[in-house]
């Protein structure tokens, strides 16, 4: 089987648009686990509905892991489904994260053209869409991901927790039909700077109001993993107590958003 397009819908159904009607009409696809750490499995059969060149299979019960999608080839043998689709539709992804869910399904294409599905256990979080360093603040904007989106406008908070220290700071944020925005003031971070730690790291979460759990600010909806090495934000230089504090928003190795605060010595501050 060869797919021209493939996507996972909000209901976790895999939709395939096939290049041609398969010569052997399959009644099921086989999802084979991609061998990792020597672990091989025989695969899970998943019922498939076929209408002309359109096929769909409900992957709601698929356990977490990386799965190769297989179907009948021209001779009726089970073989990996080939795909032309690069596997990323950003509009679909933002639609997908808009619903409460505990598992995230993504379609992938291997460099040699095989179709795979990645299933990951997830928790609700606050998907960051924009980070803007300003004079004395960092503006953030985004939307709730994998969480219920309370209708209407609500006052919520961004709580900044100092890593390894535990100090908490908070500022107001707005939640509007699931879209959040906040302007994080940086002076309180400078005031709370723990000198003994050198670089102070602050991890923001969205909380309060109608939210019944803290939601970590992060960027995971798209396909860019490892943003720490790929995306950087402008640091804010803040005069504070006769010296300069440099506060930089950054993505962690887990693609969470954090703030790093460093007190610069006189020479660095003057640069």
């Amino acid at each position, binding site marked *: 089987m060869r797919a021209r397009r493939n996507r996972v819908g909000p209901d976790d159904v895999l939709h395939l648009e096939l290049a041609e009607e398969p010569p052997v009409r399959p009644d099921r696809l086989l999802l084979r686990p991609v061998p990792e750490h020597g672990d091989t499995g025989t695969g899970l059969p998943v019922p498939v509905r076929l209408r002309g060149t359109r096929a769909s299979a409900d992957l709601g019960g698929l356990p977490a892991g990386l799965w190769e999608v297989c179907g009948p080839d021209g001779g009726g043998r089970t073989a990996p489904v080939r795909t032309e*689709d*690069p596997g990323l*539709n*950003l509009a679909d992804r933002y639609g997908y994260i808009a619903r409460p869910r505990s598992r995230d399904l993504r379609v992938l*294409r291997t460099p*040699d053209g095989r179709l795979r599905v990645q299933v990951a256990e997830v928790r609700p979080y606050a998907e960051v869409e924009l980070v*803007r*360093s300003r004079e004395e603040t960092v503006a953030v904007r985004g939307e709730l991901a994998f969480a219920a989106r309370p209708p209407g406008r609500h006052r919520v908070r961004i709580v900044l927790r100092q890593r390894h220290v535990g100090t908490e700071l908070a500022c107001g944020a707005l939640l509007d039909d699931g879209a959040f925005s906040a302007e994080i003031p940086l002076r309180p971070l400078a005031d709370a700077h723990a000198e003994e730690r050198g670089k102070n790291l602050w991890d923001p979460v969205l909380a309060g109001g109608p939210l019944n759990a803290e939601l970590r600010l992060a960027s995971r909806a798209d396909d860019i993993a490892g943003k720490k090495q790929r995306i*950087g934000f402008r640091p804010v230089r803040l005069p504070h107590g006769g010296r300069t504090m440099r506060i930089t928003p950054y993505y962690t190795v887990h693609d969470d958003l954090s703030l790093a605060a460093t007190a610069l010595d006189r020479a660095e501050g003057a640069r």
Partner: protein
Amino acid sequence: MRIAFLIANAFAMGGTVRTTVNLANSLAERHEVEIISMARHCDRPFFPLDPRVRLRAMAPTPDWSGAPPGSWLDRRRARRPVRWLPPTEAKRQGVFNARTERALRRTLRGLDADVLVSTRPGLNLAAARFAPRRLLRVGQEHIHWGNHSDGVRLAARLLYPRLDALTVLTEADRRAYQRDLRVPPDWAVRIPNALPGGDFPRAPLENPIVVAAGRLGPEKGYDKLLDAFALVAAERPEWRLRLYGQGGLENRLRRRIQRLGLDNNAAIMKRTDDLPGELAKGSVLAVSSRVEGFGMTIIESFACGVPVVSFDCPHGPGEIITHGADGLLVPPGDVQGLAAGLLRLIDDPALRTRMGAAALAAAEDYRPAAVTARWEEFLAERLSRRR
């Protein structure tokens, strides 16, 4: 035909190695093919070779710890530079030294082939000097004549005319080599690089992503691209630029991204093992190079159905892209023009789709089968002239 390729190090990874291995594998369908590698630094070649292609190496690189032990004389020869080569070539000491030269001369004397294709300037010069005349000696150039060092140009003027033919990647190169060397009128021939084999993904052209790819060096003009993308992002803030590549300018480009306020719009994506896969996630390829040897990324983008907006720099883009059909060419260095070209495709999805389809059709000329056929036709014709 019996065809031998002469390459610096067939075991390494790199653009010339990849295109040579692709061509050798493809020609092996119908011909006897051999690769002669001047150097070898590991057990197995990085790019997989068709089992029908014979591979032999002249000598291990002096720094390969796993190399079979050579004689004292071999080791001494490996330390002796080749004096007759221009310095820019001779400095590749793992490839050109007295040991590899000696082994090459002996190999060429006994080489059982009809054709010898050499793949870089130093090897072209070696083939011109040492390959017997019974072989059809074909040089390959991937670098524009004007971009060679003075030493290479001087040596090429003296020795290249001994070669029976030279293949180059662009028409501009063909004219330049033909003009500056004392050679017969149809001595230089344009044969472009081939796309890698296998299936390419097809871009749906729906994501608000502009892609650029190539080494993060000054020749790629990414400073201009970022300036242009700042103009794009001011009008279409939801669009993103993904830059694939590594290189010395990375930190400088990161600072430029921040200075231009593109923190949320531009990402330096590092290297990827699956460039076609990443190109196909985008909707437009941007090429901001000051100079291009050929434009491999452009044809890979075409093969994914992604239209291209490019500076019309010397020499590749203008020969690959048909302006207004499969992409847009803008004057070199024209930042406003590059931004306008990108915005034209960003704002017109129907134009993107139309140009993407034309790009796919244009990519057919670069499929391995098409390029291999050109090689076969060229070599057969040159061999028939000698009979």
